[in-house]
């Protein structure tokens, strides 16, 4: 629900919804997302916010005030690589949308943060686990060394495996919640908005009115 409020506030601040992103760029995903996502100022935003916050499939209602030029019409959205920016006044295909988002700073950041956590931590725990397994067969005398009473090194190592699993689970969940979730959600709505604009645009023949058609290709 806070999402909804944030959206609303951000949208109201916008004077020129088309090119507002010029100033802020990708560094502020909320604002630029809106500018980019082609929501004209006259669109009733609270309704939209509620719609999104509920995670409902996009409805079929008309979208007053939409300008078909919108997606890709704003020069501020130059992707980082500068490659294949969608032409001015042209509509984006689904492929273009995803390519564009993939090149964006915000997405690169989400991906970097994700990989920056799971690759080193994943390697570390796999090494630790296989180290444990290999120690059990290669160094049985070490593993059998008693520590306290009947408890030996092997027992402690096994319990330590449990402990590290719990700790890493907690760390991952925390990292994802703090460092990935907000931006990933912004990007999700960005794709949604863009895709919607693409489908509503006049003259567009790609599956009009079918909700989420762009994203659903996989399952069919």
């Amino acid at each position, binding site marked *: 629900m806070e999402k909804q409020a944030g959206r609303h506030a951000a949208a109201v601040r916008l004077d020129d919804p088309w090119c507002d992103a010029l100033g802020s760029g990708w560094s502020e995903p909320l604002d630029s997302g809106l500018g980019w996502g082609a929501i004209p100022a006259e669109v009733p935003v609270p309704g939209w916010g509620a719609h999104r916050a509920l995670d409902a499939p996009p409805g079929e209602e008309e979208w007053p005030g939409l300008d078909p030029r919108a997606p890709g019409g704003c020069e501020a959205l130059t992707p980082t690589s500068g490659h294949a920016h969608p032409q001015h006044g042209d509509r984006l295909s689904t492929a273009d949308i*995803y390519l564009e*988002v993939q090149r964006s700073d915000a*997405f690169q950041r989400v991906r970097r943060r994700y990989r920056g956590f799971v690759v080193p931590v994943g390697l570390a725990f796999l090494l630790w686990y296989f180290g444990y397994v290999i120690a059990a067969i290669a160094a049985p005398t070490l593993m059998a060394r008693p520590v306290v009473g009947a408890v030996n090194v092997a027992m402690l190592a096994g319990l330590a*495996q449990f402990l590290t699993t*719990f700790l890493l*689970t907690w760390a991952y969940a925390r990292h994802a919640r703090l460092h990935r979730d907000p931006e990933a959600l912004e990007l999700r709505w960005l794709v949604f908005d863009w895709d919607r604009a693409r489908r509503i645009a006049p003259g567009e023949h790609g599956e009009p009115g079918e909700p989420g058609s762009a994203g659903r290709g996989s399952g069919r």
Partner: protein
Amino acid sequence: MSGDHQTLALLLFSAFVAATLVITSRVSRGRQGSPEEFYAGGRLFSPMENGFAIAGDYMSAASFLGISGLIALFGYDGMLYSVGFLVAWLVVLFFVAELVRNCGRFTLADVIASRMRERPVRIAAGTSSVIVSVFYLVAQMVGAGSLVALLLGGTSQSARSWAVVGVGALMVVYVSFGGMRATTWIQIVKAVLLMAGALTLTVLVLVRFHGDVNALLSTAAERSGHGREFLAPGLKYGGNWTARLDFISLGLALVLGTAGLPHILSRFYTVPTARAARRSVVWAIGLIGGFYLMTIVLGFGAAAVVGTAEVRTSGAAGNTAVPLLALDLGGGAGTTGGTILFAVVAAVAFATILAVVAGITLASSASVAHDLYSALRRPRSRQRSEVAVARIAAAGMGVVAIGLGLLARDLNVAFLVGLAFAVAASANLPVLFYSLFWRNFTTRGAVWSVYGGLVPAVLLVVFSPVVSGGAESLFPGSDFQLFPLQNPGLVSIPLGFLAGWIGTLLSSERPDAAKHAETEVRALTGAGAV
């Protein structure tokens, strides 16, 4: 074995069956037979509910009976299963759960097919999912059989066979009529029962030793007949280097297999978002970790209280250690306490088997209907609804599982599950990893990677000591054993990765940058997720 505990156990078990049938009929009432409903239960379960259901799906009879039994027989070497089964969840949490939730709809093949040419990829991934499910199902059926044999006294072969048939029939009913919604609720009920049962026994074991873990371990070592060696690695896997390599192979299969199990993957689709999928895995890890810690106590407890020799007499594979432990903890055979506890444990174990079997059957019927049928159906043939096909497929899986379950009755359940994990890690995991993380992956790479892992894994099992050439083999009379290891993972998992890589290098098709962008963006942001 007195008649009392049999009657009581049967009563409790009938109560569970009745309750699950009520759940099945209630939750499926008035629901349309849409695929969304049948495969994913409407996608509206909460993370906590799904976490319990994941734990319920995962904590199989193999864990409850098999791992404790292995620990009771071989001491520390059985503990590897507990550790491996839990650590595997980090792989699921880090690399699979959220991304799969975001990219797929119902099955593993959905994730891969979104980037590739659909037909060959669906056939490959659907086939491997079904085969993994069959391996896993057999393990559960064997568990059901040995439990009932114990319950009804001695080695009553017909009772055993009827148990396998009964479990098979019930699972078909749950899945065909209740779909994912009923299956999920059955998993949740079962997870709660199983945790409660394990917790009770653990507390009783600890009370028996006055909370002194040291005394528990020392007694276990003493009564095992192995002394201190019982508490250190090496009893089962310590002999020659073949046995040691087997241990590594098993360790590899356990930690990488979970992420490729179809029935686990399909659970992520029952929650609305990737974030919910993550939170359900966190719940599941908490429950599963707690449970496996308890199996360790129960295993050593069975060795200490019942004695390794007695466990082995009751069942050579060790699957009956926990029920025997319960009988003793309650006061011994013939006492009221012993009767009740034994009956409760037997009923819980049976509930476990039923629930897990239902989960696997559902996932495999989804693979048959959503992947294989839709890809293989001739375009002009009469269109059947996918859900109808899935219901028929569930019945078919039931027949296959019953048949194989009757055949493979004398193998340790945890060990059989280890094989299923090896096949899952070889056939499903490489293709999943490549699809999610490798930009240049192609259709040919995907197909090669599935078959390149699946075929060696299955062949190596066929030519392993599990099937022939040993006293404990499936066919002890014949000998076509060529491969020394019991678990194929060490060879077949690298082969799966290698085949995918070579297939990609050799394919003429150029990798599709747009499709890769779509997969990557969707996986990490949830854009376009259903």
